């Protein structure tokens, strides 16, 4: 394990401190209880507050998406470990401007339980909270026999679009409804060529042979559902995109946002090779590529791999997607 870190137990603290130093125009960091990253001008009068969070190690998610038109606060937990209720409550209080607060929660038992407790506590303090649970990962069967689908890269799209709705002044109910719509129309799937290593663990999250690929990974370095021999990128893209297309299903003449997301250690040139094939598949199916986003946005430390997300959009969702956003990791229109 070779990393640009100091004390393995301080990587989250130091990373957040560096983030705060680099982006003091966008955010402030509340350090007690550690850590909450809050939009510099929060609470924004009259606006619904958006809070997300979860285990660290997925950067830029979530702190990188705090700012105008997206999140009002991010709550980074320990590495790959959901935050406890205290900082979630603190974030909720910091961003509440009286219009209520939306919690955007990725569907993991720990995240759901801790956000649940925080929402109860916020309610007890008189803050109206709604929660949206994101579960866009088609690699996991959504059945009674699993913890349900995981929230992965689609989270970014939920945060962007719900954030734009909040920024234009929508009510808490409406923002929550839009967030749920985005979640219900987003599907993702990912793969890894190489695992990641949690600093304090010191060992990779799983072992992969030199010619193996892990298909259907989550974003916590957990193993996927299937291990196969390495194949050309185009073939691997097909393996990711077919289950996505079938699941919603996406149909001819649908308009979609295509997000090709790197897992942290994947060079951009490879993401574009993946994008090329994904766009080709969409064209073959007569699906319209409305918007493209390519980058490492929802990551697993230095994992080498990629995920593909498709979001089906209508005019309203597209307008909200296009609306100005000014955060450390996503910025346009401002």
């Amino acid at each position, binding site marked *: 394990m070779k990393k640009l870190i100091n004390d393995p137990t301080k990587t989250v603290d130091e990373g957040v401190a560096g983030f705060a130093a680099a982006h003091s125009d966008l955010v402030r960091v509340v350090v007690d*209880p550690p850590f909450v990253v809050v939009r510099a001008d929060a609470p924004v009068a009259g606006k619904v507050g958006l809070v997300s969070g979860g*285990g660290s190690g997925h950067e830029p998610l979530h702190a990188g998406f705090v700012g105008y038109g997206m999140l009002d606060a991010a709550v980074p*937990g*320990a*590495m*790959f*470990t*959901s*935050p*406890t*209720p*205290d900082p979630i409550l603190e974030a909720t209080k910091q961003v509440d401007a009286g219009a209520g607060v939306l919690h955007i929660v990725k569907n*993991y*038992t*720990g995240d759901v*339980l*801790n956000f*649940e*407790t925080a929402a109860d506590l916020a309610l007890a303090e008189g803050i109206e909270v709604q929660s949206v649970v994101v579960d866009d990962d088609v*690699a*996991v*069967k959504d059945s*009674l*026999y*699993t*913890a349900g689908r*995981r929230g992965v890269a689609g989270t970014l799209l939920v945060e962007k679009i719900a954030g734009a709705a909040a920024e234009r002044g929508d009510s808490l109910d409406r923002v929550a409804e839009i967030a749920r719509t985005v979640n219900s129309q987003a599907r993702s799937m990912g793969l890894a060529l190489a695992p990641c290593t*949690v600093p*304090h*663990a010191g*060992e990779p*999250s*799983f072992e992969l042979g030199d010619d193996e690929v892990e298909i259907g990974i*989550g974003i*916590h*370095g*957990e*193993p996927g*559902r299937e291990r196969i021999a390495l194949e050309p990128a185009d073939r691997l893209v097909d393996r990711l995109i077919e289950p996505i297309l079938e699941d919603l299903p996406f149909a001819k003449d649908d308009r979609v946002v295509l997000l090709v997301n790197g897992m942290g250690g994947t060079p951009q040139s490879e993401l574009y090779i993946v994008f090329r094939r994904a766009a080709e598949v969409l064209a073959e199916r007569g699906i319209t590529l409305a918007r493209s986003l390519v980058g490492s946005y929802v990551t697993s430390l230095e994992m080498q791999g990629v995920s593909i997300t498709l979001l089906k959009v209508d005019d309203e969702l597209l307008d909200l997607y296009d609306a100005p956003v000014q955060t450390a990791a996503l910025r346009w229109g401002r």
Partner: protein
Amino acid sequence: MTAGETTLDGAWTRRWIEAVAAAVAERKSALTALDRAIGDGDHGENLDRGFQAVLGKLDALDEQPTPGAVLKLVATTLISTVGGAAGPLYGTAFLKGAMAAGDRQALDAAALVEVLTAARDGIVARGKAEPNDKTMVDAWGPAVEAAAAAGDDVRAALEAAAGAAEAGAVATEPLVAHKGRASYLGDRAIGHRDPGAESSALILRVAAETQ
């Protein structure tokens, strides 16, 4: 002090928790290794962070706390320091246990069974896991039943609970998981022991060994 003379008072509860903290620190890597196999490799780290925080707070207790007061301190500390799935689940377990212990100065066997039952029910209420879903419930369920069947002797009850929890943890190995991260793995979870069941058995084993 010989076996059978133990009184499960606040001081005992405190000794137990201190011993749990030591045992978790010692078994940290092993618990994390189990979690790496079918989860995200942080279970030992999470619990250790929590119990170390508990150690730092024990001195804030009254000089002669009730068992319930100790359990409540453990609960709130775990809730606010562990995170992940285990934080709220263990937090709820200790919180419900504390409520069941109430103001009692010490727990007899019947009260112990009440506490263990409340703890298990708390975990089930929050996590919605059923038996054989390959979770910590598979340690707590058998533990409660064995303690209840052990009669009036607290030491026998503790020993029964620990043994049943350990057997329950081992019995998670052949299972497919239906809750928690291991459920994402489908059949690939088979053959691995559930880390939360293992840590639950450890906590109860330490109780049985605490004089």
